[in-house]
């Protein structure tokens, strides 16, 4: 007789199993998969430092541009990967819905956790390199930077849930996502700080919630930047509304997703 487990215990068991499975799949798909996961941010930083030096000559910034890029790309890549990996997760994990304790949303939670885990490792690598090569990695307000990351994780999850549910029924959404992410990278203050741009451009770009997150995170990291452009109410609304729409759609459609 299988003893009855509480639903929270079942949830934890499922998350444990899915997390380890996702992780081993990620790193078993050839050595190159693992290499790119960790090398991609370095490559991005390298390219953008080169571009900046070519365009503006070497730095007149009040902060270290390489550290600025490392911080922003880490946060942005985390957001991007949570959304992109989660979008495909219903179809990729279809075979697992054979086990009734695996709900589709579990696979998104697990993929989000895996991305958070990988991001943590990348942050550790950056910190190590920062200390070793004597970069100025001093943080203005660590708790606010952490809050920014945490909030971004929740927003990414909520946004990913909406996209994943829609993508389960309308195929082409997943393909558009690649374009969307490229657009977001250029408009989200990832490799520049908003206060460097003309006011009119700022006003437009700050409608982008991801830009608000990026501004929040780097303004609490560097002494010389401030968060006066960030609207916390605005990103709070984005988070709550995405979460609400995502969960509402998911609850409505869960049974149909299980048997796609």
């Amino acid at each position, binding site marked *: *007789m*299988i003893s009855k*487990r509480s639903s929270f*215990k*079942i949830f934890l*068991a*499922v998350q*444990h*199993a899915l997390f*380890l*499975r996702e992780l*081993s*799949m990620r790193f*078993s*798909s050839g050595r190159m998969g693992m290499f790119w996961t960790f090398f991609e941010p370095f490559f991005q930083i390298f390219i953008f430092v080169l571009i900046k030096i070519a365009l503006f000559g070497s730095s007149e910034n009040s902060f270290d541009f390489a550290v600025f890029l490392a911080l922003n790309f880490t946060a942005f890549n985390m957001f991007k990967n949570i959304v992109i990996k989660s979008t495909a997760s219903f179809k990729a994990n279809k*075979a*697992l*819905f*054979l*086990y*009734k*304790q*695996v709900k589709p949303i579990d696979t998104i939670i697990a993929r989000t956790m895996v991305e958070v885990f990988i991001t943590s490792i990348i942050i550790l690598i950056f910190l190590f390199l920062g200390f070793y090569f004597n970069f100025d990695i001093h943080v203005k307000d660590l708790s606010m930077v952490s809050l920014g990351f945490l909030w971004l994780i929740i927003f990414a999850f909520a946004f990913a849930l909406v996209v994943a549910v829609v993508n389960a029924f309308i195929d082409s959404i997943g393909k558009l996502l690649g374009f969307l992410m490229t657009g977001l990278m250029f408009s989200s203050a990832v490799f520049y700080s908003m206060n460097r741009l003309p006011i009119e451009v700022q006003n437009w770009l700050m409608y982008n919630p991801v830009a608000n997150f990026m501004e929040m995170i780097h303004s609490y990291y560097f002494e010389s930047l401030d968060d006066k452009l960030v609207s916390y109410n605005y990103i709070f609304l984005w988070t709550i509304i995405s979460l609400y729409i995502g969960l509402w759609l998911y609850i409505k459609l869960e*049974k149909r997703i*299980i*048997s796609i």
Partner: protein
Amino acid sequence: MIKLDRVTKYFRTKTGKKYILKDVSMVLPSDKNIGILGRNGTGKSTIMRMLGQIEFPNRGKITSDKSFSWPLGLSGGFVGNMTGRANVKFVCRLYGKSKKEIDEIINYVKDFSELNDYFDMPIKTYSSGMKSRLSFGLSLSFDFDYLLIDETLSVGDANFRKKSKMALMKKIENCHILLVSHDMGTLRDICDVGIVVNNGKIHYFDDINRAIDEYASINK
């Protein structure tokens, strides 16, 4: 006890709704091994999936206080690029098994499925027979009230078929079975009662032989 309360299940097709069950209410006894009969496409597997709670009726409710295994079918429910061992571990973790229990189950499944070296190779290199051997061995290591089995007994070579039938006979001393099969011999040997699915209706027979006779008359 499995209770079906005004259950309706249909699939939408281009020519309209295709009913599997139409407003069916019935109670199935809990201390019997149940055979499910019906022609191809009548919805035997769908009914089994509904009992396993991975498919849901359009209207009505299916309730039971018993635990059901996942439906053991040809599809397997395994992840192609993970090894047999990793898949077994994964399922054990889903059911919250401890490290020690997992090791025991792995040894048992490896031994039972006779996969030898293949046990540590990705599932995508398996034949469908090998997959169902793994799946069947794995399901025997858990204690469910009901095993849901969909045709899997008819795969594998004669030797393995004999072995799995024996293992199953031993297993059903402690649990019960819901079996979808077209093999009348197997149904007669294992099941006590039968249900025949036909045209959106279910007929229950408290003797498997009468269910088999009914099925034969449908097929005429």
